[in-house]
Structures are given as structure tokens and as C-alpha cells.
């Protein structure tokens, strides 16, 4: 089976590997896994609470090259997006960008799940939006 140059590039030079302070209120952490292939993926976002823009994103994935490439690409895409824009990233976007073969589509699903989990975690850490509405800038 042939793999796209983009998968190989992300696999050999993964972007944004590392971790952010999990306890920070501005950091959202998503930990997801696919037991059938033994993959586990951690993806974190650091959000500017005033603008809602993702300033930094890190990941660490134990799994196949496609899972690593999918999460690496996801962190690249996340930076500079707002949390709401981030939620619009679909696994199919990752499949298209990396030209993933059908048997590796679940890797992109995992990356999408990781984004959603990280953003969800960040949102849970924020004060209720009703209260924020009263604050005057």
C-alpha cells in the first residue's frame, strides 16, 4: 500500500509534539483511544479566554503513522482558529488532506474525537456564559 507524502512528512517530522499544563484553566485536554488497534491520542489546546482563539496546540500519539499524522495535522489546523471554528473540523477534511486509504479513516475519526474532547474540556473549565454576558469590556 502506498502512503501519501503528507502522511510520511507528518510521521517523520510531527508538528507540535508535547504537552501543555493540564491544570491551567485556559488549557483543554482530550484523551481518546481506539482499542481495536491499540492507539491512544492526547491532544491539548491553549485558548485565549478573551478572544476564544486557540493560541497553541500540542499532541502526543502512540499508534500507527496515520494516527500520528492525523493528530499532527489537527494541531496545525487548530492554531489561530476560534474554539467554534475548531469544532467545524471534520475527519473527512483530514482524510482528504492526507489522502488516507479507507482502512485508515478511523485514525482521522480519532483525531476529530480528540479535538472535540479537548474543546469540550476547555469549555467545561470556563465560567457559565450567562455570567460572562454581564461583564463589560
Amino acid at each position, binding site marked *: *500500500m502506498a*502512503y501519501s507524502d503528507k*502522511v*510520511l512528512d507528518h*510521521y517523520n517530522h510531527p508538528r507540535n509534539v508535547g504537552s501543555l499544563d493540564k491544570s491551567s484553566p485556559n488549557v483543554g485536554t482530550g*484523551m*481518546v*483511544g*481506539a*482499542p*481495536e488497534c*491499540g492507539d*491512544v491520542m*492526547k491532544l491539548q489546546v491553549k485558548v485565549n479566554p478573551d478572544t476564544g482563539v486557540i493560541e497553541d496546540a500540542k499532541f*502526543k500519539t*502512540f499508534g*500507527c*503513522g*496515520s494516527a500520528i499524522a492525523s493528530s499532527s495535522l489537527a494541531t496545525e489546523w487548530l492554531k489561530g482558529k476560534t474554539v467554534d471554528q475548531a469544532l467545524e473540523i471534520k475527519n473527512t477534511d483530514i482524510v482528504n488532506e492526507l489522502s488516507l486509504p479507507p482502512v485508515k479513516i478511523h485514525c482521522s*475519526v*480519532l483525531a476529530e*474525537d*480528540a479535538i472535540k*474532547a479537548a474543546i469540550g474540556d476547555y469549555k467545561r473549565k470556563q465560567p457559565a456564559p450567562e455570567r460572562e454576558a454581564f461583564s463589560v469590556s
Partner: protein
Amino acid sequence: MSSTLPRNYYDFFGIERKLTVDTDVLQRRFYELNRHWHPDRFTRKSPDEQAQALEATAILNDGYRTLRDPVKRAEYLLTEEGFPIGEQRSKDVPPELLEEVFELNMMLEELKAGDESTCSQLEGARQNFLDMRASIERELEVLFAKYDAAEAHSKAAKQALQEIRGVLNRRRYIENLVRDVDGALDPSIAVAETAEDRL
């Protein structure tokens, strides 16, 4: 026209749909059925019957491979009962398990990056994983008995199957760690696994 063959492995072997299987009985049934369906006995029969014998032999071999192995047997029954192992989303996996597997992988990665001196620690990690796997096998045996004791399709049976799926998930992760640490200890294993396999 010949009658249709049972598709379900348990039915094909004529044994109860239980998770605990007497492998001696299974093996006896395998030999019996193997003799019965052997294609050599069908050379003078109609093409339909020959085709059926061939089909039966295929089911027999797949079924035997599946049922004699406790893990494959459990995965098969889970799928049959509507708990397929391969179609789970991350939300089905408890976060504690992912945290645990992540930490174990981190530790293993650090050890692998180390020099020769970490070799004994790697051996220790390997033993730890093997112990974990052994305790998982014992856990499975207990859960198998729990499922077998419950009435088929009852709430208790479903509950047991769900627990079994959880334990099999954990087993899969531990199995990967064992393979990983084996590769680190003996690079020739890692070389055998080509770059393509990892992608």
C-alpha cells in the same frame, strides 16, 4: 438440493453458546466433522454437494480457530450478541484506561530512549506487562463463568458481555505494549515489522 449449513460456529459444532468451552470436546467434534465433510468423500457426488462440502470445511476450520482460542471466542460471541469489538468509538473506552495506557507508553518511550543501562528497567516493564496480561486472563475466566451462569440475552448476560468487552480492550492495549517492549529489547523483532506496517 442440499440443506443449508449452520452459519454460527457454535451451532455448526453442535455445542452450547457458552464462553467457557471444553477444548477436548471441541477438538473431538472438529475431527468428527472434518471426517464427515472431507472433500475426498465427495468426489463422486454432485457438484452442489461438493461445493457444500468445501464450504463446510471452510466454516469448520474458521470455527475451530475461533472457538479454541478464548480471546477470539469471546470476540466472536460479543459480535454475535451485538457488542462488536471493532466498532467502538472512544466514548466507549473509560478515560482511566486511556490515562493508564498513555502513562505506560510514556514510560516505555523514555526507557527506549535511554542507553544500555535502562535495559534492566525494560525487562522489568516487560514482566509488569506480562503480569498484567496474566491477571487479565484470570479476570476473563471469571467473567466467562458469570456470562455462562446468566440466562441468555438477560440483563445480567448483557452486563457480563459489556464487562468482557472492557477487559478485552484493556488486553489489546497491554498486548501492544508487550510487542513494543519486545521490539525494544530485541531490535530484530522491530526490523521484522516493516515501516509500512506501522503507517
